[in-house]
């Protein structure tokens, strides 16, 4: 094997990182080539010299500066995080939902009463039950309403009963 072909294997050989077969090839070459033998020895010497350089220590403020830079970094949120519910929003939404369910399930006299005023059973309702009495006279004397067909008589007692029971 020529010297030029052995060059790339020289540092791995010095490091002891060659495969066994490659190492045997290298040693066979070195046994026959004085120049490469000298070179390998001098590479080892250079490696030893590089060990003599002292390590430096980062300055005392280094960590603090990195931490300050990290703390100054803006909080990064993914695009999907917009849809992630925050605890406060979730709590508020839960309260709103509960309130809606509670209001929806409540017995509603007022709705039925208002429906009676606006519906066809207006004349069968006791005016005293109406919450807004100031409009009753206007409605009672409102001519277009008198032209409306009379309600079916059979339904009235049921409605009245319902209203009274409620």
């Amino acid at each position, binding site marked *: 094997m020529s010297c030029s072909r052995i*060059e*790339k*294997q*020289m*540092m*791995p050989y010095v490091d002891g*990182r060659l495969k066994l077969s490659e190492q045997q090839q290298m040693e066979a070459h070195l046994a026959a080539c004085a120049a490469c033998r000298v*070179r390998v*020895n*001098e*590479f080892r*010497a*250079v*490696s*030893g*010299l*590089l060990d*003599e*350089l*002292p*390590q*430096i*220590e*980062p*300055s005392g403020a*280094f*960590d603090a*500066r*990195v*931490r300050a*830079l*990290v703390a100054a*970094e803006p909080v*990064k949120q*993914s695009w999907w995080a917009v849809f992630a519910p925050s605890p406060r929003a979730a709590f508020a939404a839960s309260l709103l939902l509960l309130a809606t369910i509670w209001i929806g399930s409540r017995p509603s006299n007022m709705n039925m009463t208002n429906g009676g005023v606006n519906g066809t059973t207006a004349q069968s309702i006791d005016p005293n039950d109406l919450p807004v009495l100031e409009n009753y006279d206007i409605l009672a004397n409102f001519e277009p309403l008198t032209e409306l067909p009379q309600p079916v008589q059979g339904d009235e007692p049921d409605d009245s009963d319902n209203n009274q029971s409620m």
Partner: protein
Amino acid sequence: MARSDVQLMLDVKAGDEQSFALLLQRYRSPLVNFLYRMVRNREQAEDLAQEVFIRVYRARAEYVPSAKFTTWLFRIATNLALNSLRDTRHQRMDISLDAPLSADAESGDERTLDVADKHPDIEQHLVEEARKAMIKHAIDKLPEKQRAAVLLHKYQELDYGEIAKILSCSESALKSLLFRAYETLRVELAPLVTGAK
């Protein structure tokens, strides 16, 4: 049992700031030393090392452990160092081998040669300082990529595959790079090498 670098980085990704502090503690000294030997200026080396850590932190959300953490870390550091050297090339001055030992002032070890002969070992000390300055100068004179290869190989003890990835070259190219670097160092340090054998 100590958590691996990859595990720490995954914990940072999950929002654990303490894991980032552990990575900082683990790699601040190797990074600052590597960068100091690359850019030859302590203050600049620390600034670059801080930049490396910030880039790691910023990239935490996208971190995928596809390679060794050190490969990623030193790749960022090497790229920053090479860019910095290119940016400041016009500002740098070559240091003469004949320069006084105080040329190493940037390391904080500024000394003068005309010290009174108070200590019997002062001569030995100066010889050692001159020897270190010569080694340091020999490394500084290497082309940037060869220097990075030697520093990663010698001081970080990374394997050839890792260094090749950091320097964006093949393993074969890296071995050639190291051979050429050591050939240059062998010549530059001939007075010390022949004495060391």
